[in-house]
């Protein structure tokens, strides 16, 4: 049967063609292709690993930043509270001081007024006394112009003494 009888010519050309194709493709096609595909595979694997690592790193950073933020919030609240407290203390203290100052001022004013008043009263007293003496002198002068009247006065005065 022709169909299943190998033919040497075809067999020979087949080997020649195959070997030539193999040698040329090995050097100019398969080598760069296989090498590139392998490099690409490695690159992709590395890339995925790096991305995975970066994701972990990012997660860490996120956790850290979250902690920092929450700490900052606590700190801020504390500061605000402290500020408010300080403000209130200052206000209270200032008010107390002011009240005290005012009281002191009023007190000192009162003392001064009292002193002035006493002094004025004393002066008035002196003036009244001197005025009274003057008036009494004038009256006596007028009344004791004659002897009779002097006598009468003496009598009355003596009466008074006796009565006492």
């Amino acid at each position: 049967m022709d169909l299943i009888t190998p033919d040497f010519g075809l067999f020979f050309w087949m080997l020649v063609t195959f070997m030539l194709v193999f040698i040329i493709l090995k050097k100019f096609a398969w080598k760069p292709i296989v090498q590139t595909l392998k490099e690409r595979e490695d690159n992709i694997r590395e890339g995925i690993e790096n991305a995975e690592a970066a994701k972990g790193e990012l997660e860490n950073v996120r956790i850290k930043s979250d902690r920092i933020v929450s700490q900052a919030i606590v700190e801020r609240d504390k500061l605000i509270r402290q500020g408010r407290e300080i403000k209130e203390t200052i206000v209270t203290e200032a008010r107390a001081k002011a009240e005290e100052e005012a009281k002191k001022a009023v007190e000192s004013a009162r003392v001064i007024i009292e002193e002035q008043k006493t002094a004025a009263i004393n002066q008035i007293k002196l003036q009244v006394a001197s005025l009274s003496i003057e008036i009494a002198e004038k009256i006596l002068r007028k009344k004791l112009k004659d002897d009779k009247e002097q006598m009468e006065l003496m009598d009355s005065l003596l009466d008074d003494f006796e009565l006492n």
Partner: protein
Amino acid sequence: MDSQSKFLRILKVILLLMVCLKPSLSAADDNPLEDIKFDPGSFIFDHIGDAYDWHLFDIGDRHYSIPLPVILYSREKGLDIFMSHRFNHGYNIYRGYKIMTDGPEKGKIVIVREDGTVDPDARRPLDLSITKNVTGMFFAAFIMLAIFLTVGKRYRNNPQAPPKGIQSLFEPLILFVIDDIVKPAIGEKKYIPFLPYLLTLFFFIWINNMLGLIPIFPMGANVTGNISVAAGLAFTSFLVINLNGNKHYWRHILNTPNVPVFLKLPIPIMPIIEIVGILTKPFVLMVRLFANITAGHIITMGFFALIFILGEVSPVFGFGGSVLSVGFGIFITFLEMLVALIQAYVFTLLTALFIGAAVEDGH
């Protein structure tokens, strides 16, 4: 009868050209009578077999074919190189050579005596002719080089660029061969040195299979469905497997461990079986590829032959049958495209598995 045979011839030509019937060989047809009885056997087998010229079509009694170089060498006649049209499709004797029209050497070139008869004792000359299959194979090799040198250049120049154009068509296939055939079969550590051979093998078989399905010159030769080509491929596979066999592999063949001694001495039954096994592996590869591809071509050609068989009965039958045959022909061609890939896959996978077994470390 005359108009009917004319009709048949026209139908034949139209189908050959339009319906993409594979160019059939009728070089050995030495019966130029008006009424040629259609012979489906030679119609099919002339297509499947090899030929010294590339037959395109017939118009009337004239054969149209592309002549191919004939290269012959014999001790008595020396080297002879000429184009195959000198034989005039097998009708002529040229420089003492003749294409046999019957007998066991049918279709082959033999040496004839001065008086035109064949010398029964003369051996065939060494025949290195660039036949139809060799031409088809050269074309496939050219296509392979064109594709993979382009692809390879792109990988070399832009190694990190994403695949583009023809590269994106072949990258998945190359990756398929590497990751799904070679790597699992040979093993992660040792597969790289075998990649160039196995990639060449896979694409050589696949591209030849595919080109064999396209019935337009210079494609459509039944290259991988030829026993010589399949044998050549199996031979390379045999060499690669056994030249790379390690100590463990040869020990396993010559002195199989865990086998009773009486199987090795005094008659070395096991070594003989193992050595036969070395030879059957490539033999089976050869037969599988040859049989699968040839079977596909035979079925396709059978459907087209049916048109002419029915046409001889009645032209109406011929037309009716052609619809059916073309439909089935298309279906079978699609099936053959699948077979083309599967056979390339199986051949490469089995070769890779045998290589894997040959380079495996002791267990």
